[in-house]
Structure formats: structure tokens, C-alpha cells
């Protein structure tokens, strides 16, 4: 049986309070908050974070990787290869970008369900809009990753597919020229009418093919960038039953094509510990409607999701609107008067791919000394080329000492920087992220996160930073 072997979402820690928009401009904004990618995050790094969570604790022998986003970090160059490298996957596995529209994520998921190899589908989006627009306030940034494959005893499925259907229609509802930050939309009622018709038809067809009745569906995920249409479709398919999965738009916004997989992750996580047998319909509205039908298995009873979305919704940091505007390059703020770093060398980056992308150090076979970055010569004993690779990306550490650099070049100064000792050995001086200077303290516990240090000559410099682990107090306060 083919199904979902694992699934996770990733929501950046930053939240923009929509009230701040109208406070500044006198219009726009609204109630609630939206999620905002850090200045050092793009769809590739968010995708890596979701994928790491989805793969945590799993030993996947061979898999394909599909990456879907409407806001890619690169065009022409494949983005999925950076995810593949950051996950430390072997060269023999394929990694492909899968389209660039709001329909790509659900399409990649459907494609993976219908294909042969084990496939990790990763979706990430970073939704922009002009200041005061409903897209700015209503959009959100997030990633989701779902591992799809044949259920086995070693990798049981959390949910299996029951069927699905698509309805495809070429009509103009929302469009954006590549590179532009602003989406445009036709008169809303037109899109709403089309989506309700398309979703109704596809949903009925999917149920019929799976010989299911509407009443047999226990949970319905409805997502789409046309928010009115999504609401209308949800109301129509639910038929008054309390089966709609909360859409999270109040707290994080609508995250484009990623939203379907993110809500599916949220739905499945909420079912962790249940006996199984819950039937779920995922309906995504984008230039048609795609329906996927799933049913949880008994494996979900013993599933402990890694950093579930419910926890990520609690672990947040308010982001001032001014920072939001500067991070989105809607306003240009004065940079530190320091020289900008040079562009990354393609050849040097390629040679250190395992270190740079997967944070793999080296460990001296005779003394066990860990070297970060990897070294050919051991600093203890001096053995040469007697090292084994040691993956450290998932190892936590402790802040030994730290500093706040208010002068050094950074896309968002100041830079918090710490000397980190890793559990089980190894030390590395590393930049901290997702925190304020006041939160950093000696003895603080950190974990690693894949980020973009800066961009020069349009080359993104991807590497790892450390972020503070949420303390027990933080969790309970929120």
C-alpha cells in the first residue's frame, strides 16, 4: 500500500501583527498575524527545515526529492539540489524542482502517490505583496515535507491513499510575472464561481471512484490562494459537519501552494495517538481543483511528530513592521558601513559540499577528536587522513561564550555570535539566528538550522546557524 510515511511542516518563528500595517499606512493589515521568513531564510532553507523534520529518525535507503515553490531562490539552477545536499543524501538519488505555481505542491504530492520510488515532496513559499495589500497581510511563509512510498514493516504508513481526482481549467484568476513580487487578481466572484464548480465536481468524482460517500470523510483540508473560494468550497463540502481542518490563516496567513501540505501535516499531527481509520480529503484550489483522499492507519497511534506545527504556532517572535518591510526589500535601510563580503566561490563551495550544506565534520579514528570544519590532520595526535565523516547537523550544543557584533556587515545587524560546544564533542564558532541579543546567555542550548548567510552577485551563501532551543518557560507562557 502506498501512502504517507512521514510528514512535517516548518513555520518561521517571526510573526507580523497585521494591525501594524494600518497603524503605519492608515489602511491594509487586518486582524491576527502572519508568519514571516527570517532575513536569512528563503524557500530553499525553509524547505530544508521541513524536510529535516520529516526525515528525523528515519533511515530512508533511497528516495527521490521533489521541490515545489512559486517563489524559488534561483531560476534555471535547480533548488532541489541544495535541499538534497543539506539533507546529506547520496549522489545516486534524483532531486528535481517541480514547477513554479500554486498548483505545484499538490501536484508533486499526487505525482509521488502515483509513482514508484519513495519520494520526499517538499513545498515552500514566501508570499509577498505590495505594502497594505491583502496579499501582504494575508500571505504567509512556510514549508512542508511529506515522505511518500510503499508501506513496509520498517517504514509503516501513517496514512494510505484511497484515491483522488483533478479538475483542470484554464482561466485567469491570479497571475504574476516571474520576478515580480505582486500578484494580480481578476474580479473575485469569477474565480469563486469557477473554483466552487471545479472543486465540487472533482470531490464528487474522487469519492465516487473510491466508492466513498461524503459523510464517510472525517476531515477536509481546503486550501487556495483565493480565500473566498476556499471558504465557500469548505462550506459546501463540509455540508454543515465539523470536519474542516483549521486553516491557520489567522495566525500564519495563507502560504501559497505549500498550504495544502502544511494543513495536511497539521491534520495528521492532530491525529497522532488516535487508532487510525480517519478518512481525510485534501482539496487544493489552483487553476482547477485537486483532491487527494487518504485514510490513517493504526501506525498513527504510535507516531510522535518531530516539532509539530501546534508547537511551532506557540514558539513565535513578534516582528516589527519596519523590519518586515526591510527584510522584504520594500524599504532600503542603511547598511553597516563595512565592506560587503565577496561572492562565494563555486569551486570552493563544491569541494566542501558535505561541510557547507550538510554540516559534516571529521572524526579522528584513533582519538575520536571531532574537527569542525573537517580537517585532514588531527589536532590531537597529528594523524593524517585517518578521519571518518561525522554528521553534526542534528547534534545540539551549549553556548560557551558569545558576543554581539554591532559593526560587522550583515543583512540585518547586529550579529549574535556564539562559541558552541556540541553534545558528545566538537566546538564551532557560529552565528545565532531567530533571537534578540538579550536572549543569548552562556549555557544556552542551541540546535542547528540551515540558513542563507548573504547573497552576493546573486549567489546565495547557504550555511548553518544556531538557534536557541525553546525553553520550557517559553512553551508554557505562549
Amino acid at each position, binding site marked *: 500500500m502506498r501512502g504517507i510515511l512521514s510528514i512535517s511542516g516548518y513555520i518561521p518563528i517571526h510573526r507580523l501583527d497585521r494591525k501594524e500595517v494600518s497603524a503605519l499606512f492608515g489602511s491594509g493589515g487586518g486582524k491576527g498575524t502572519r508568519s514571516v521568513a527570517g532575513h536569512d531564510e528563503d524557500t530553499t532553507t525553509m524547505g530544508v527545515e521541513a524536510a529535516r523534520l520529516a526525515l528525523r529518525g528515519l533511515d530512508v535507503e533511497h528516495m527521490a526529492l521533489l521541490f515545489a515553490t512559486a517563489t524559488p531562490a534561483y531560476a534555471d539552477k535547480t533548488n532541489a539540489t541544495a535541499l538534497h545536499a543539506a539533507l546529506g543524501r547520496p549522489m545516486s538519488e534524483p532531486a528535481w524542482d517541480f514547477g513554479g505555481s500554486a498548483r505545484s505542491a499538490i501536484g508533486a504530492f499526487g505525482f509521488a502517490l502515483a509513482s514508484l520510488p519513495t519520494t520526499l515532496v517538499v513545498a515552500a513559499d514566501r508570499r509577498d505583496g505590495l505594502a497594505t495589500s491583502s496579499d501582504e497581510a494575508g500571505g504567509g511563509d512556510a514549508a512542508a515535507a511529506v515522505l511518500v512510498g510503499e508501506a513496509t514493516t520498517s517504514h509503516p504508513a501513517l496514512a494510505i491513499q484511497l484515491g483522488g481526482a483533478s479538475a483542470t481549467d484554464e482561466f485567469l484568476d491570479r497571475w504574476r510575472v516571474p520576478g515580480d513580487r505582486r500578484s494580480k487578481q481578476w474580479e473575485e466572484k469569477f474565480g469563486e464561481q469557477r473554483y466552487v464548480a471545479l472543486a465540487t465536481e472533482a470531490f464528487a468524482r474522487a469519492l465516487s471512484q473510491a466508492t466513498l460517500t461524503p459523510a464517510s470523510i472525517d476531515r477536509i483540508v481546503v486550501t487556495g490562494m483565493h480565500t473566498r473560494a476556499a471558504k465557500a468550497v469548505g462550506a459546501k463540502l463540509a455540508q454543515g459537519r465539523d470536519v474542516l481542518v483549521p486553516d491557520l490563516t489567522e495566525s500564519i496567513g495563507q502560504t501559497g501552494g505549500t498550504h495544502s501540505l502544511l494543513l495536511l501535516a497539521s491534520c495528521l499531527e492532530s491525529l497522532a495517538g488516535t487508532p487510525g481509520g480517519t478518512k481525510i480529503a485534501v482539496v487544493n484550489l489552483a487553476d482547477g481543483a485537486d483532491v487527494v483522499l487518504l485514510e490513517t492507519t493504526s501506525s498513527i497511534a504510535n507516531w510522535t511528530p518531530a516539532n509539530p506545527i501546534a508547537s511551532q504556532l506557540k514558539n513565535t517572535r513578534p516582528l516589527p513592521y519596519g523590519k518586515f518591510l526591510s527584510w522584504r526589500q520594500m524599504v532600503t535601510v542603511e547598511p553597516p558601513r563595512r565592506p560587503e563580503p565577496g561572492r562565494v566561490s563555486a569551486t570552493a563551495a563544491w569541494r*566542501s559540499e558535505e561541510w557547507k550544506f550538510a554540516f559534516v565534520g571529521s572524526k579522528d579514528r584513533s582519538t575520536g577528536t571531532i574537527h569542525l570544519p573537517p580537517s585532514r590532520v588531527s589536532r590531537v595526535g597529528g594523524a593524517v587522513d585517518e578521519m571518518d565523516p561525522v554528521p553534526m547537523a542534528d547534534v545540539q550544543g551549549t553556548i*560557551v561564550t558569545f*558576543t554581539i557584533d554591532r*559593526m560587522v556587515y550583515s543583512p540585518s545587524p547586529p550579529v549574535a555570535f556564539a*562559541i558552541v560546544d556540541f553534545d558528545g564533542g566538537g566546538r564551532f564558532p557560529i552565528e545565532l539566528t531567530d533571537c534578540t541579543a538579550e536572549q543569548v546567555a552562556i549555557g544556552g542550548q542551541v540546535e542547528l538550522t540551515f540558513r542563507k548567510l548573504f547573497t552576493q552577485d546573486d549567489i546565495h551563501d547557504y550555511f548553518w546557524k544556531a538557534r536557541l532551543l525553546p525553553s520550557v518557560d517559553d512553551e508554557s507562557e505562549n
Partner: protein
Amino acid sequence: MASHGIKDQVAIVGMGCTPFAEHWNKGLDDLIVDAVEETYASTRVVKADVDAYWLGTVQGGMSGITLARPLQLEGKPVTRVENYCTTGSEALRAAAYAVASGAYDVAMAVGVEKVKDSGFQGLNAQAPPNDGTARTLTAAAMFSMVAPAYARKYGVDDETMSDVLAAIAVKNHFNGARNSRAQFRREITAETCKASPRLAGGLGVYDCAGVADGAAAAIVVRAEDAYKYTDKPLFIKALAFTAGSGAGLVDPSYDYTHFPECASAANDAYAQAGITSPRTELAMAEVHDCFTPTELVLMEDLGFAPRGTAWREVLDGSFALHGDLPINPDGGLKSFGHPTGASGLRMMFECWLQLRGEAPPERQIALKSSKALTHNLGGYPGEMVSFVSVVGTELD
């Protein structure tokens, strides 16, 4: 295998040093010519006597031509050296070894840096093409990690630590105010220092060395020839150098309260010079006070105070101009300024003045011995190069 040193084999017989300042009206070549001309004026050596040259500059130019062109040297061996902020000391070390080897009779070491043409404050090194994984912080940020670590280890409370660091800045400004070549010639108060804006960690503006343009030079000859060229030579007792492996950055046992490279270079220098009690055997020391906590830790690395006690001695004034062991009587990097390639030779220039009794009366120290030390470092805590020399006016 051993570090033998060249004790009493080579002598410095001429020195010069430009004012260190934001020399908007002088280029690299002007600074070189000024320092070299002053050096000739200080000695009986003339240009034709100099057999070989070493130029120390971090970013001033590549190759020996950077020196040969402005000085119009013809047919001479000229080598450019670079070793971070110890570059000036490296030029001297190379020139001294060349003379000691017998390869040349007379050699000149020149250190120069034209920092203020970059358009940026502070020192800015351009990294070679790389994989983008080495996060470069400012030097201030890297050194700012020392003070809290030191305070924690030795139980010094925040307020006392703040007093200690301010006392170092106040002392060096006091000395620099008595030095016509220094970049900053104004005394400051501890309150001013403590109230200055924080740049990195707990370090404020007044905890940081000045950044200036400047040049300095020295002429070295064999010790037996020294009195031909000057009546008051400085004999080289020790030249020691340690390049760290960078282990401190990745070694969990490193605690940021000391600089092993500096202690290592000092131990080698003391062995070369036959010094067993540096605190009593030295008349003074010039040390690399790039930031106030650096000078504090160096007092212990160089053996001037036992571990964990230097902070008390700083407060007691032990290292003041007329203290037990004057440190940085010329104002140090803090107020003299820090043209990277020149600073090592600038330190030696102060020894040249003080040991010969030629410092201006307002900052001439009482000479309790005939020996002085210079200490020069480059890099950051955990990944550092360090130089230590000992010179003296007497042959042992």
C-alpha cells in the same frame, strides 16, 4: 632541534617612525619615504650601505617592488612579508636573521600601512575566494569574548571588570597624550571610557585601538659592527614567533581567558634571552593592546603577573608610566594608533627611545634595567599569531 635564537649577534643601529594619524595627505609611498629618511637621520648608515630590505605590509601592496619603487632601490633584494598584525615585527625578524646568518652586513626592515584609503572605519581584510562558511566578525567582537570569560573564571564582578578595562584605556591615553607621534593625544577619564557606545559585546569605542596610517623602520647590523653606526645600539636578545593552529576555535578546552600563542612566544623569547623573571628584569614592555581586555590577559601570558591577578595590578597602577613595570609608555595601539604593517616596528621604536634615554622628558621612564620587550599579535582569540622580542642596550 631547538630554538637557539640570535642573542647579542645583531643590533639595531637606526630607527624611524612617522606620526600615526589619518594621513589624508600622504600615500603609502610618502609614509615609507618619511620613515626611511628619519631612520637614516638616526644613524651613520647611508642608503648605499644597506644590502637587503624586508617590507612588512598587510594590504599596502604585493612584492618587494612596493618598497623598491618609492625608495628607488636598484639591484637590491627586497622581500615583502605579511603575518597579520605582527607583520612589522616579521620584517624585523627576517632582516635580523639575514644579518645573523652572515648573508648581509646591513639590512633594513620597513613596516607600513595605509589604512585610511579604504573608505571604511576599522580594519578590513578581503578574504580570498572561499566556500562562504567562515563567518568573519570584527576583531572587536572576537576579542569581546575575553572579558566576560576572564571575569567569570577569576570571580571579578562586572563593575570591577569595567573599572579594570577603563584603567587600561586611561593609562594608554595618558601615555599617548605625552607622545607627539600618537594618533590620540588626549587624556580620557574612566567615566568617558565606560560611557562610550558599545561596538561589540561589552567593548566600547574607548576599549578599541585607534586605526591610523603610518610607517616605521629599523636598520640592523652584526653586533660587532654596531658602534660603527651608532653610539647607543639596541642588541637583539630574542626574537620569538608562534603561529597558532587555530585549535582554540574548535577545541572545547579553550576558555578565552588566555592566549596560548602569546605565552608560547614569550617562553621562547625568555629562554633565548636568558630571562627568568620578566617582571623584574625588564625596564618596560610594549604589548599589543588592540582592545583593553587583550592588554589585561597579556600581562599574565607574558609572565608579568600570575594568572588571575593582573586585574588587581592594573587597578593598583603597576603598569602605569611610572609604575613597577611600565606597559606601553608610548600610548600603545590604543592611542598611538594601529597601522597594521607598522605597529611591530613602532613598538620597537619606543624601546629605542626609552632605553637610549631619548624619550621626551614627560614620558621618559626610570630605567630599572637595560632591557625591554615588545609583544605583537595578529588574528583572534583561538586563532592567533604572536611575536615577542627582547632587546637591550648592553651585551650580556
